[in-house]
């Protein structure tokens, strides 16, 4: 829906930003930052100083360190979710698209059920029953999003199935397994990659939202949504504590959205984008 017109500069900037954030997240333990979980009440709500570049929070923890360590949780959890979803939904969607018949309609009915719930509310219910915590949030968001992917993958597989190169391979007597691995998957992969990139931001917002409510990542583990939840009571006196983690989520989500959009445009221009992804 959103295509063209995006300056190359903005896309490059997003990519550069994500690479920097990724590098910081991966190297966080070796950057010589203060311990993000160390409580020091003597220095609580301190102003920025040489020791604490962005000051400290209400428990005297270093804000910059919590932001950088928080990126590991906020971004890492989303990658875990995507890995689960992409793996599972690619399997389920290709199975439905390829097998057709009863398998297809059974799988699609299951998708229908999961798409009937309002997403965030099903995730909340799941976490409420299984208990709060990062693992359960990851499972909950997987559970609420896989059906949507499976359905799109099925659509792509169905349209690939009728393409000449696949038909030719079939006529040549290629085995089913080989057909999927050598012919379908290579055309499917870029589409799923674009979908996943476009969705990273959305999922980050869900993880952060659940954590903000206190249902996701549990303190003292640093995470951006939790940091916003911690800082809300200081909106009158220390608004900067709210500003940093929110800005971090916003900028990273935006960069992923811009990147995903540019990837979709590129794939579209090359004529490889399937109707199901648009």
């Amino acid at each position: 829906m959103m295509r063209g017109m995006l300056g190359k500069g903005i896309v490059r900037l997003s990519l550069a930003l994500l690479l920097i954030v990724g590098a910081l997240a991966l190297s966080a333990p070796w950057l010589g930052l203060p311990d993000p979980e160390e409580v020091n009440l003597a220095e609580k709500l301190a102003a920025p100083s040489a020791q604490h570049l962005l000051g400290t929070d209400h428990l005297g923890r270093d804000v910059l360190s919590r932001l950088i360590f928080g990126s590991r949780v906020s971004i890492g959890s989303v990658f875990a979710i995507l890995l689960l979803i992409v793996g599972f939904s690619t399997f389920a969607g290709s199975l439905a698209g390829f097998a057709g018949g009863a398998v297809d309609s059974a799988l699609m009915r299951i998708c229908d059920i999961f798409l009937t719930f309002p997403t965030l509310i099903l995730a909340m219910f799941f976490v409420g029953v299984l208990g709060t915590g990062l693992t359960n949030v990851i499972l909950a968001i997987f559970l609420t999003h896989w059906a949507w992917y499976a359905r799109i993958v099925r659509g792509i597989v169905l349209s690939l199935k009728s393409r000449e190169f696949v038909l030719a391979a079939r006529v040549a007597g290629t085995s089913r397994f080989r057909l999927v691995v050598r012919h379908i998957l290579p055309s499917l992969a870029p589409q799923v990659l674009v979908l996943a990139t476009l969705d990273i931001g959305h999922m980050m917002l869900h993880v952060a939202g659940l954590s903000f409510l206190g249902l996701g990542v549990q303190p003292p583990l640093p995470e951006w949504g939790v940091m916003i939840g911690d800082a809300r009571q200081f909106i009158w006196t220390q608004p900067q504590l709210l500003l940093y983690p929110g800005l971090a989520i916003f900028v990273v989500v935006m960069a992923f959205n811009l990147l995903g959009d540019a990837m979709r445009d590129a794939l579209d221009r090359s004529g490889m984008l399937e109707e199901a992804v648009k």
Partner: protein
Amino acid sequence: MIRFIIKRILVLLPILLLVSVVVFLILRLAKGDPAMAYLRMSNIPPTEQALVDARMELGLDKPIPAQYFDWLSKALRLDFGRSYVTGRPVLEEILHYLPATLVLAGAGLLFTLLASIPLGVVAALKKDRLPDHLLRAFSFVGVSIPSFWLGFLLVYAFAVKLGWLPTMGRGGPLHMIMPVVTLSFMSIAINVRFLRANLLEHIRSRSTLYARARGVSERRIVWVHVMRNSMIPVVTAIGMHLGEMLGGAVLVENIFSWPGVGRFAVQAVFNRDYPVLQCFILMMTVIFVLCNLFVDILYAFIDPRIRLAGEQR
């Protein structure tokens, strides 16, 4: 038309039934013993004998399918049990908080339409010019900003700094401004793009070309012909936005201390109050499904092609 409506409802019933199976199965995953929770709630000391009796009473000794049918028949009679915390019937509690949430979500939907229609039209008419670029940037911001953070930014600007709006709670119309804007921001951002794409598609369509050839004025083409056709998908999309609104309301109610059902449900998560949670999810899902049914019917009403295709099948 009646046949179409009946058909749609008949399709929904098995899906709702399967939804209840999923809810039941997730409930079965819960840690902790429901019999124990029941005893705690009733202030009975948890002796061995009391636990066995409680399991019998709650039907936990029966096989799982039998338990499901017991549970379902109770749910159909709107008996969702009592809250583990307050001991009051769950339905009563939920219905007490529900109106505030529906007011918030309804106002959010209304505001989404009111804001996104003119903005979408401007974006389409000024395609590739400054207003379009600005609205494009706005859309990216809208889908990227965490709603809970946006809420606090608004509170900081309009309550803390300027002192124009109340920070929390429910009261006059002033209390609604920030929660509604926070709730609908993302939907507006999505809807503006969606409407723009639809408008541009119809502006290029053959029927528009034909209207132009007949000498219909440009203004009439845009506001009558193109608008009418482009609004149909936008109306359908409203059903989807409602799902986001019901979920988003949980966050917004928390930020602004809005006394709705979402805030109540978050407390239920902390208290592991399963009866409340199951009633909450069933209620929200049914509301979501019924609204989408309503939108479907409305859609068929506006666009006879859908209705006829549905009847032929």
